[in-house]
């Protein structure tokens, strides 16, 4: 467990600034997720914490100690890579034991720790196989196992699920969450571009944009009180509806944001009216895409089965307490 502090951290590749001054504290035992669109610097930030990239300026502290110039293996971190990065020529056991062998741990110690980690991840029957004999999900477990064996202060995950298929992704996500609890809440930092992963896993989320922190907070905070249009649009699926022009002016702001579940379909007291131009039925929920004359159709989420046919003209009632009002700069209007 470690408390990690980033103080005005910067990274540039030549003249190109990737990380533009980040201040952040990651609490001990916290599951922190870095999320953002591709190219926002989230992976670079993780690699700075790991020590795989040199820090251009600023300070990185683990439990109050400056670790800027410490090599990765001395920082007490373990990393799970997007492509698993297993050693192809080593059996699963040797893959997991490699770090301990290099640290010249005793034979018994290594065996015990590898077997424990393998049991925890239910891969103890695979220890004699080569990585190429494993499925994608199993390889990912081995990669996680290799991290666990190191008994790190901080776990770093670099988009670990993006190579798995959808079903396996949900399952592995659950297991990573379980792992966090079963390992006495070791500090974990997890990078993803998938906001669903961020919402479901994180204690706190750090939304990054263009090398800067956009907002840090619990999933609920980001969902309910986004402090910019960017965060409002990035967090949540389907995307928050944004209305500009006359629609927004009626509420005294430049851009009006409202989530799909906060709009009711009703003719009585309808604020907006429009036609259903598209609909998606997910079984438990359905999404109506309603053209009310704005730039894009408004998405309305309804519980239950789809009952409204295409082309129907309906009235929409936004819930007044769940409106997000933004000014010209994209920040919440006063």
């Amino acid at each position, binding site marked *: 467990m470690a408390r990690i502090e980033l103080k005005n951290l910067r990274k540039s590749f030549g003249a190109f600034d990737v990380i533009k001054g980040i201040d952040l504290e990651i609490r001990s035992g916290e599951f922190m997720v870095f999320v953002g669109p591709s190219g926002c610097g989230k992976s670079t930030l993780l690699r700075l914490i790991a020590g795989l990239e040199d820090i251009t300026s600023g300070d990185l502290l683990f439990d109050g100690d400056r670790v800027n110039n410490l*090599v*990765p293996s001395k920082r007490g971190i*373990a990393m799970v890579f997007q492509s698993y990065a297993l*050693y192809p020529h080593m059996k699963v056991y040797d893959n997991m034991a490699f770090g301990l062998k290099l640290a010249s741990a005793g034979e018994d110690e290594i065996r015990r720790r590898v077997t424990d980690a393998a049991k925890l991840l239910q891969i103890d029957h695979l220890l004699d196989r080569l990585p190429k004999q*494993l499925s994608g999900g199993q390889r990912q477990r081995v990669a996680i196992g290799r991290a666990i064996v190191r008994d790190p202060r901080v776990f770093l995950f670099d988009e670990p699920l993006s190579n798995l298929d959808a079903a396996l992704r949900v399952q592995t996500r659950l297991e990573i969450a379980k792992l966090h609890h079963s390992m006495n809440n070791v500090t974990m930092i997890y990078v993803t571009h998938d906001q669903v992963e961020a919402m479901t896993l994180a204690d706190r989320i750090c939304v990054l944009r263009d090398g800067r922190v956009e907002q840090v907070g619990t999933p609920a905070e980001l969902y309910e009180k986004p402090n910019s249009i960017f965060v409002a649009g990035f967090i949540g699926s389907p995307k928050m509806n944004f209305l500009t022009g006359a629609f927004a002016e009626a509420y005294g702001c430049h851009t009006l944001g409202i989530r799909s579940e906060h709009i009711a379909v009703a003719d009585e007291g309808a604020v907006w009216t429009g036609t259903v131009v598209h609909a998606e039925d997910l079984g438990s929920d359905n999404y109506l895409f309603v053209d009310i004359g704005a730039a894009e159709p408004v998405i309305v989420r309804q519980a239950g089965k789809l009952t409204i046919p295409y082309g129907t003209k309906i009235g929409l009632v936004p819930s007044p307490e769940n409106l997000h009002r933004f000014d010209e700069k994209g920040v919440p209007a006063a």
Partner: protein
Amino acid sequence: MSASRLFYRIGFYIAVVLIVVISVFPFYYAVLTSFKTGTAIFEVDYWPKSFDLANYDKVLTQATFPRNLLNSLFVATSTVGLSLLLAVTASYALARVRFRGRGLLLITILAVSMFPQIAVLAGLFELVRYLGLFNTPFALIFSYTIFTLPFTVWLLTTFMRDLPLEIEEAAIVDGATPWVIITQVFMPLLWPALVTTGLLAFIGAWNEYLFALTFTSSETTRTVPVAIALLTGASDKEIPWGPIMAASVIVTVPLVVLVLIFQRKIVAGLTAGGVKG
């Protein structure tokens, strides 16, 4: 099967047979001749008629030939070992370490291999003399390594570049030093490349003639190609074709054996499974 496909099939196999015959025939004829003695050598036969090991006996019992074979073996093996060691470490730096002038260095290394042997012969001779290596196997190991390295470094650099970066980073996180990464992570993955380049370096050193002729002077330090060329008969007028052919066959066999052994090791897809797949 349509007529035109059959035609191309037949044409293809005719071409294959032609290539095989052209490349194998000289060696086949050497083997045939090596089993003949006396005037039979000068009769043109395409099928084996006699089987006489007298030539082999003559070559192998001749004072220095076995010694020459050992010289060749020592020189070629040492060249392979030395050049692989240097090339693997150099190519790691060239492929994976970011430093100023890396591209220029790579081009320079390649440029070294442009010089024909004969162009550097005189200079190299002076160098060998200066270092006190003249007429020792080390003169040959030294010069062969120089000529093998550019090729070896380039080939291994290309292979090394293709190894997934994340595997190296995983090793770094595991606490591996560059030396551990090279020897315990990269070398096992580079086996096919190492075998291929090592084999080519071995063949080059095994066959080399010009340097071997120039940098050695006594019969006991010569390598096989020079020894064969300098085989003499009973008189000045006689060229001992029989023993020459026998020696040629003897010197070829180790190469054939090596290639046959290692062709199994040259398996592609060794990196399969390490990264996604």
